[in-house]
């Protein structure tokens, strides 16, 4: 999956609920269908919120990986 090239990268590291979710929603709003958003986050809550949000709004969560550097990377394809 590492070869997917994101159209936009959003850094929410250090932010806690609800900021990562709000920023993700805002970023996706400004993107076209089919574009890829990469999100970096550290809030454990996002691991539930982002998948739930993607499911509800027909966006595709391509990847959710805990990186050894201590944060999580989400790759979302806008639906």
């Amino acid at each position, binding site marked *: 999956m590492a070869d997917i090239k994101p159209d936009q990268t959003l850094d929410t*590291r250090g932010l806690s609920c609800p*900021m990562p979710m*709000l920023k993700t929603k805002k970023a996706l709003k400004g993107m076209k269908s089919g574009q890829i958003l990469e999100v970096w986050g550290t809030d454990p809550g996002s*691991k*539930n919120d982002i998948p739930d949000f993607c499911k*509800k709004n027909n966006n595709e969560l391509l990847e959710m990986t805990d990186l*050894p550097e201590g944060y999580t990377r989400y790759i979302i394809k806008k639906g």
Partner: protein
Amino acid sequence: MSNNFFADIKEQTKDAYDLVFGTKWPAWVGGILLAIVALMIFLWDYTWGIAGGYHNWGDWIFHLAGVKSQPRTLPWLHHLSVSNAGILLGALASALLGHQFKFRRAPKLEYAKGVIGGILMGSGAALAKGCNVGGFFSAVAMLDIGGYAMMVGLIIGAFIGLKYLLWEMEHLPQASAAPADESKAGKINWEAIKPYIGGLIFIAVIAAFYLYASYDKTVVGGLLFFGFLIGLIMHRSRFCFVQAFRDPFMTGEAKMVRAVAISLLIYGLFTILIKYNYIQDPKMDVYHPFWFGSLVGGIIFGIGMLLAGGCASSSLWRAGEGHTKLMVAIVSFAISNSTTFSLLDYFGIRNKLGTPHLLPDIVGWKLTVPVFILIILVWVVIANWNEKTEKFVVF
């Protein structure tokens, strides 16, 4: 055979451990368990609340700073202070056991929001004589109609708070804070040790319960233990009152509304049984200032919980998970709550904010059950409808 036997036990223990600490519990499961523990606290001692404990902490902070005279109760004997400590320890143990604990730094703006959110929550909880738990959750379950006024206030406050967050994203510089790099670990492998520390905290809480009992303070010791259970339940299910009030405006998600509603139904219906049969006094915990104090307090509290990213209860369990921003919010909440109570007393308006009313005194005991259920159902039905149509989603 004995080899197999022990291997089996080991495997089953691991499966059970993964089920409890490796996964997130559904929010509604958290809601049901929370209601059961809240009822146990009600029968054990008095109604569950949180802000009262913060009030005590704030009084002590001012006393130690030399501003206020010594508070009546020591923090380790104050009932709600002790159950708050239990919640914090329960969440900490749960986060350690689930490999979710670490000290989490935040950008500067977030700390400022933690302070301001704490100030707003502390003053709102003083006006309403209770926070999202004592002023809303427990108040509704205790058939105190001030709880409904605070609920309306929390909905309005959450809406205003969310509007501010949207404004902030557009107009204030956005920063992030990278976590400490874990790939360059030191000599000690903390990740492997953390679950054992979590287990030790659990044992220490049980030991403290016994210690309290040996000093004839069994009731207080029990509250530490019940608080511990609440912290564990809330952290594992990420049970969050803020989400219940905020998400219908933010994403339309109604999951947490349903979880709070299930919890309230169980908590309230059993309370009706307990109060109707005089197992506990029907007037117990009916003191919320309907409607002005509860409503206005709810609005201020609602704005504060959006800024802080946690209410009275979820700030505690998030602090237990290591969020430094929420630790700041709790201290700020305690100081502000104590200050606002003093100001209300000083100006003599504490008892002019409204009068408490028991729901059965207004609608009669016969109608209490249907009215109680109906109000909660209306909330759920609207939230479910909004989940599909997103009519109330502001962005």
